[in-house]
């Protein structure tokens, strides 16, 4: 297409177009065209598919030329930029609009400045950044319809080399996947591998990657050794449900869902073994060392928090963390007591049965035996209730505590980025001074070199600034997400638990009635 070719050739300053005479009007033409497209796009948003991924089937987009544009990376970016600029309804735009003169943000910009920041950026950043926005705007379109379940834990192998293989089943109607219903076998280290890949890709640009379930050397060893007892069964069950929740949380994140690693994880039958997840490996030790280094760095970075929103959020998260931990502790103790109650009820049932047996007065004996039965049933219910409490609340709270750590990590990255930005700014300053000096001394070649260096640094600084913007936007959106999820999730679970309680009480009633009729 002629359009794409033009874009391919466009450079920083339109005045340097080889084809000078027609560049500007050409660009204006394109720009006007873009605006038209954009306005169409805005109208069509509720019904169109998220448009920016090449892998996605975007044929449902109503605008013909738009399609062609999208098939090309460069115009796609341009277009995407335009899109995000014009749709002023999403609140994060306010942040962007109110911020400094970052060229990508001003609503009506000549295409030149739109293109400027694009060059020299890591393509991924822009790409995913814009696509996230689009998806957000066009949420109504491709309804989130994917359900993952982790089931059938199977012990594979023997002795210390044994591991549990879990069946991961995906049911979806999303066009992202090749099939509607498929399953693969995965082991725990695969999950950890997926998480580490996602973390390395996304954490540093500000996405909150859900944390994977923790390794438990004790637990796994018990399973490996082959103890078929209650605690190892519980451990496997706990792990299974944790893995399920982890996957669901990961795919609920629209960006992570489309990540090729995630797709590969869900679909491909063979996965390369992730060895760097072993706890005691050299990679593990390296990780620990890095963590320690990070901790030290964290203490030394003193950031000038210019955005009150972030300060408030950070405080909020600190508080939330404390609260959640407290809640978690309370629930744990509750669960513990419930288990105790079920044990005691069982014992009482037994002793009542014994009493019933030794009683020779028949009616009383029968009554006591029935009492024993009742108590046994109640015991069963209590146990189920305890499990319910545990799996719903306690795990949920634990998950969120861990999620908060991930969130904190994101904030830390932001600080690091800010630090980099500051550093590069200082560097720029120095270079400028050097350049000024050189100008005095009049050494043309060195001058040129200095100029180039300055350009580089300026680019770097721009990039870093952009990264910071990324965070702000992303963090805000994600924060909303987190809050929303919390709310919904807790609500759902609570509904379940209340329903459950109600059924428990009803059962007790029935049982009591039966007893009463003795």
């Amino acid at each position, binding site marked *: 297409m002629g359009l794409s070719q033009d874009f391919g050739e466009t450079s920083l300053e339109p005045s340097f177009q080889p084809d000078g005479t027609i560049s500007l009007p050409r660009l204006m033409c394109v720009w006007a065209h873009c605006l038209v497209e954009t306005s169409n796009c805005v109208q069509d948003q509720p019904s169109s598919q998220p448009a920016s991924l090449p892998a996605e089937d975007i044929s449902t987009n109503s605008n013909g030329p738009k399609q062609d544009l999208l098939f090309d990376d460069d115009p796609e970016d341009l277009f995407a930029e335009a899109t995000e600029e014009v749709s002023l309804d999403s609140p994060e735009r306010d942040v962007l609009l109110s911020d400094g003169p970052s060229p990508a943000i001003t609503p009506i910009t000549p295409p030149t400045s739109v293109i400027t920041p694009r060059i020299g950026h890591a393509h991924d950043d822009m790409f995913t950044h814009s696509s996230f926005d689009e998806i957000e705007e066009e949420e109504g379109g491709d309804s989130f319809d994917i359900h993952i379940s982790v089931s059938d834990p199977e012990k594979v192998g023997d002795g210390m080399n044994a591991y549990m293989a879990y069946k991961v089943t995906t049911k979806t109607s999303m066009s992202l996947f090749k099939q509607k219903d498929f399953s693969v076998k995965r082991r725990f280290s695969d999950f950890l591998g997926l998480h580490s890949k996602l973390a390395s890709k996304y954490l540093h640009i500000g996405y909150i990657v859900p944390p994977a379930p923790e390794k438990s050397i004790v637990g796994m060893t018990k399973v490996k050794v082959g103890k078929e007892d209650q605690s190892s069964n519980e451990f496997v069950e706990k792990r299974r449900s944790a893995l399920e929740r982890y996957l669901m949380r990961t795919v609920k994140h629209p960006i992570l869902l489309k990540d090729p690693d995630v797709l590969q994880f869900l679909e491909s039958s063979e996965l390369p073994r992730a060895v760097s997840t072993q706890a005691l490996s050299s990679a593990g030790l390296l990780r620990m060392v890095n963590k320690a280094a990070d901790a030290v760095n964290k203490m030394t970075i003193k950031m000038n928090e210019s955005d009150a929103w972030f300060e408030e959020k950070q405080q909020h998260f600190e508080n939330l963390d404390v609260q959640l931990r407290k809640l978690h502790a309370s629930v744990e103790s509750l669960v513990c007591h419930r288990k105790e109650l079920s044990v*005691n009820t069982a014992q009482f049932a037994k*002793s009542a049965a014994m009493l019933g047996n030794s009683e020779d007065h028949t009616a009383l004996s029968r009554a006591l035996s029935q009492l024993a039965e009742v108590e046994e049933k109640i015991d069963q219910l209590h146990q189920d209730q305890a499990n319910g409490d545990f799996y719903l609340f306690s795990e949920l709270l634990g998950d969120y505590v861990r999620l908060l750590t991930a969130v904190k990590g994101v904030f830390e990255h932001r600080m690091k980025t800010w630090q980099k930005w500051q550093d590069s700014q200082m560097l720029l300053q120095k270079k400028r001074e050097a350049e000024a000096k050189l100008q005095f001394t009049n050494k043309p070649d060195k001058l040129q070199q200095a100029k180039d260096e300055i350009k580089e640094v300026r680019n770097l600084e721009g990039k870093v600034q952009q990264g910071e913007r990324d965070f702000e936007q992303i963090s805000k959106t994600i924060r909303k997400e987190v809050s929303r999820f919390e*709310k919904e999730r807790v609500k759902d679970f609570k509904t379940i638990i209340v329903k459950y*309680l109600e059924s428990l009480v009803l059962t007790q009633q029935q049982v*009591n009635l039966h007893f009463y009729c003795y």
Partner: protein
Amino acid sequence: MMEEVKEVTSALSVHGHNIKITDVVKDGDALTFVIVSQKLSGTGEYHVDRTWDDFEWLQQHLFSQEDVPGLQGVIFPPLPAKASGNASAKIMKQLGVLGLGEWQPYCKALETFLQQVATHKILNKNKAVEVFLTSSDAPGRQKVKKNIFNRLSQAVEEMRKEGHKDVDEFFQTERDHNLVLTGCTKTAAEKFLDMVLTEQKIAVACGHFSAALHLCVEPGEDPDKKAFSRLCVQISEVFDSMKKNMTSVAENNVNTLGLGLDLESRYQEAEKEMLFRRTCKLVELENARRNAEKAKPVKKAAMEEVKTATQTEFQQICGVARQEIKQFHGVRVKMLQQALVQWCEKQLLTAKESTDQFNQHLQAFRGMAQ
């Protein structure tokens, strides 16, 4: 409990079956109970204050009656162990179910004791009972002379006597049966207590969780924050009602089945003691017989006398014991049945209430979900 108490020969001037302990006052270490009994003549009530020591005084008097034949065959209504305002952990453990709550179960147990004493055909003839129930002054605290019921220690000797084979099959079976039942009831009562304690712990934990949730409530205009806060408050309410439910379940347990099992257990012990006394008498009788046979003519007459006396005593005891046992069984079964029914009813009521409450909560949640 025995219903009709219109014995003309009774020394009591009050109804036995509706004696109530209406109040308990804690004064430092000592607990004072207010006992209300209805006059037979229907003209009013007696209100008296008594402490546990007074109860003990009564019991001692009952034990040491001398002119009652076959007294040893009586199954004495059991008196709960002494409780004080600041009881040590050991005493509380001993009290078991009675130590729970604000002394209500304990009061109930004392009440039952009094009712049983006052309605007992043999025991209520004792003046001490009348004095206890009607005199506004505290009964005297004079030291009662040692009686045969001091069971300070069971020497090995006594243990042997306990296993002594009986001459009468009725009593033998009774003894065996009693042994088994006592053990079972005690275990059941203990386990029941464990259950109740755990239920209380759960109630407390629910309360903590509910309070912790309240801490999560944050002020703020952010709609997400508001929603989350609202959610926390609602969940906190749910847990509050869970706590209430658990508390009342525990309470019901204590007041009905707990008391029942406890009383049963203590009553079984009392029967055991009675049977033991009888066995001791039996051993004594057999010894007397042997002595009488072996005795030299000089002492023979004396021995014979002893033997006859012992024999009479023994027969009296047996007579009384038989009656007592029959009565005991009737009373015991009825009481336990009553306890079970009451337990059932109360739990049912609580269950219904909680179902309603939980339903309400569920509706509220569903409404919020939209």
